[in-house]
């Protein structure tokens, strides 16, 4: 089963509706967006959640609040629909549930609506509008039908965008910089250099991510600027720009030396600090590596598999600057910014097949049959010698020249390794 005629090329993809599974049977497939919305909500101090859906949604998802160190700072309850409510609606039940959570002390309730409430079309938004004046808890409805998307990612960005609605207007801007998409407590991946530079210069940082508190979101409007380190965060960053006049720079999708330099220059000018000069050595190293890699990687074709939290199209645009060509790209979400990235790629004559990889075993056969020089990201053949794999899942939350340097080192090391049975493999 290696037929891929059902797939579309990038030029024909304008939303997730046009992104089809590479092979039909999801095994195991992706988590639904409710999972990520809840995992985010449960990890922000002071946020309460109400998952609205079926027993499956309520039962399986209880592991998430259990695993959260901040679960006790909020209420994490479920509202399970019965057969009558599926037919006649659940308006009264959900109003009672909201009142009960309000009475129990919830400060903010994320109403996470799953597939069934979304399908039957109960108007939760208007219920929130109607009941909001009567209760103290702030209600935020997040519609997350799994049938409307290809993966878990809308659970992150839609929740974050909704949380932006609790941000209060600030009359006076402070010197604070919002760091979007990275926790101050995460030590399993290196902290981006730009964060260290800002810390050195005593810039107050506010991290908005899991491990933040509700208060961090409330006060995010007083920031001088936001730095987005994740595609999940860009919708929130844009919202803060629009509603609170907090500009942002997006670093997660900047891979080329020029793009990174531009972003740092904007930041430097905005904060009236010295940033670019602190990055000089890294820039020089990245520049040198880029030139070397471009010579080496020209005409290399690749398949981009599971890149985790890295947005695949901007990464492909950077690879095209190195002369690399994508054969196929796995996309779990089509972000608004992907329109621009897509145009850039098409302008460079790159029109890869776009797909959703949901079955490592079955997808592996097709990936191998397309004979890429290298596979970028996680896939079923990652332990095989050919094609080689470049793992990039651990670049989550990392940005800047240092990420580009690591990326270039990994790819060139892999592709310059001795050919034919002499040491291909993953690093």
């Amino acid at each position: 089963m290696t037929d891929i005629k059902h797939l579309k090329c990038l030029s024909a993809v304008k939303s997730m509706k046009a992104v089809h599974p590479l092979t039909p049977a999801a095994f195991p497939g992706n988590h639904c967006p409710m999972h990520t919305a809840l995992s985010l909500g449960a990890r922000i101090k002071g946020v309460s959640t109400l998952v609205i859906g079926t027993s499956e949604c309520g039962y399986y998802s209880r592991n998430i609040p259990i695993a959260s160190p901040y679960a006790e700072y909020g209420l994490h309850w479920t509202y399970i629909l019965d057969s009558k409510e599926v037919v006649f609606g659940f308006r009264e039940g959900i109003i009672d549930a909201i009142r009960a959570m309000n009475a129990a002390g919830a400060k903010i309730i994320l109403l996470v609506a799953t597939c069934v409430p979304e399908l039957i079309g109960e108007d939760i938004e208007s219920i929130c509008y109607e009941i909001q004046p009567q209760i103290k808890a702030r209600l935020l409805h997040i519609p997350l039908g799994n049938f409307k998307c290809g993966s878990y990612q809308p659970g992150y960005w839609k929740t974050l965008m909704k949380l932006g609605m609790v941000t209060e207007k600030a009359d006076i801007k402070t010197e604070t910089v919002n760091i979007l998409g990275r926790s101050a407590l995460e030590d399993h991946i290196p902290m981006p250099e730009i964060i260290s530079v800002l810390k050195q210069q005593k810039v107050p940082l506010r991290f908005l991510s899991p491990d933040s508190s509700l208060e961090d979101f409330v006060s995010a409007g007083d920031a001088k600027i936001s730095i987005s380190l994740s595609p999940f965060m860009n919708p929130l960053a844009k919202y803060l720009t629009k509603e609170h006049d907090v500009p942002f720079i997006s670093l997660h999708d900047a891979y080329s030396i020029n793009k990174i330099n531009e972003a740092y220059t904007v930041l430097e000018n905005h904060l009236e600090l010295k940033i670019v000069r602190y990055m000089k050595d890294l820039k020089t190293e990245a520049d040198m590596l880029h030139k070397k890699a471009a010579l080496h990687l020209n005409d290399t074709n690749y398949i981009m598999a599971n890149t985790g939290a890295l947005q695949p199209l901007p990464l492909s645009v950077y690879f095209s600057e190195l002369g690399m060509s994508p054969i196929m790209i796995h996309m779990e979400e089509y972000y608004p910014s992907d329109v621009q990235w897509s145009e850039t790629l098409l302008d460079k004559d790159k029109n890869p097949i776009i797909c959703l990889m949901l079955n490592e075993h079955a997808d592996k056969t097709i990936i191998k049959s397309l004979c890429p020089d290298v596979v970028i990201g996680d896939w079923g053949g990652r332990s095989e010698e050919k094609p080689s794999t470049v793992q990039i899942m651990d670049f989550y939350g990392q940005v800047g020249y240092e990420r580009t340097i690591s990326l270039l080192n990994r790819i060139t090391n892999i592709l310059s390794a001795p050919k034919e049975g002499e040491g291909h493999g993953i690093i």
Partner: protein
Amino acid sequence: MGLYKTTPPFSGRMGALWCLSGIADSAVVEYGCMGHMAYGRTFLNRMGVLGGKLYSTHIGETDIAMGDTSRLTKVIRQVSETEGIKTIFLLPSSVPEITGIDLNAIAQELSPQFPDSSLIPLSVGGFDMCGHKGTELTLLHLAKVLSKDIARTQSLTFNIIGSCADMYNFLPDAAEIERLVSNTFSANLLCAMTSGTHVSEIETMGGAHFNLVIRREGEAAAKYLKERYGTPYLMARPYGIDGTLDWLTQLEDEFKLQANKEFIRQEYKRTVEQIKVMQTVLSRFLRAHKDESKLTLAGHADVISGIARYGKSAFGFDKTICFSDCTCMNSQDTRYTTDEIKLELAKDGKGFLMGSGELLRMGKRKPNLQIASPDNLWHHAYEPPLVGYRGAVHLATVWANEIMQRD
């Protein structure tokens, strides 16, 4: 249903999926959104289920609007032709339950395209059916559609009915039951429905000499097998030393079997020796601390009643209080574990509490007191059982260690 502050009860669909998941050489294809199955699969992996392959078709808005079921056809083709799996169970997820997809009709229509595959649809959905009912109906359905007309085996054989992933510790418990029956009666297990079993084993279960039903949800299947193959059955779970001895004696009498008395004597003696000191220490503790002499059990009705009897008779718990995990299993002595009851039990620091991982966590109790799902830990087949002689020793150890918490 309504509002839940703790884990809500599992659904009929979940009961069906968990039941089917233990059958190797088979596949479950769930028609619906993939998050449904991604979650289910994760849960089952954690429970230690090794069996069928679990696939999802995923569906999009267009499929729902247009009533397009071509994703299902494509997945069946992949599973049947590429993966080579020939027994394929079709399960609806919640969205197709609403849109009214007729899986029976689809299976019928697709069957000619896959002549060497068995497409078996299951209708255990809806939004009101509890998980235990789903388990019951699935066990019955499996007995009906998979078991084949077959002659009684020459050597003594038996089936275990009802060993499914929703029962906490189902794998070790089934292994202990098999060990006891094999050694006592020189009988071989044909099929453990449905833990660690194969399609071929279910097909041959009609050849067994007797069936052991280890939970009430298995009785419908056992009755069907009795009707079709004349196989007698016994519905019971053996807990404690005397409880296990009684159970083995009952098997001997009911099925007119020849028991290996020496094996029983040795097992009994060894178990008594092993728990003796713990029994002395624990019963003395319970006599001295009357306020602690309470054993509260929350879980499957067939599990809690057996453990309660053992605790009371062998260790002298003054009071045993039982709560079932399903409204359909309420009785005079057993109430359903509502949210309020869970919160109350968690708050009550007195006595010995056994229940789900969730309840123990809520009550800040040790995880080895677990006797019910759900929890968030990984499990495997080599954990100590709760049933049988070995289960009796394990329970005694758990309770004896619990004293350390109380001192």
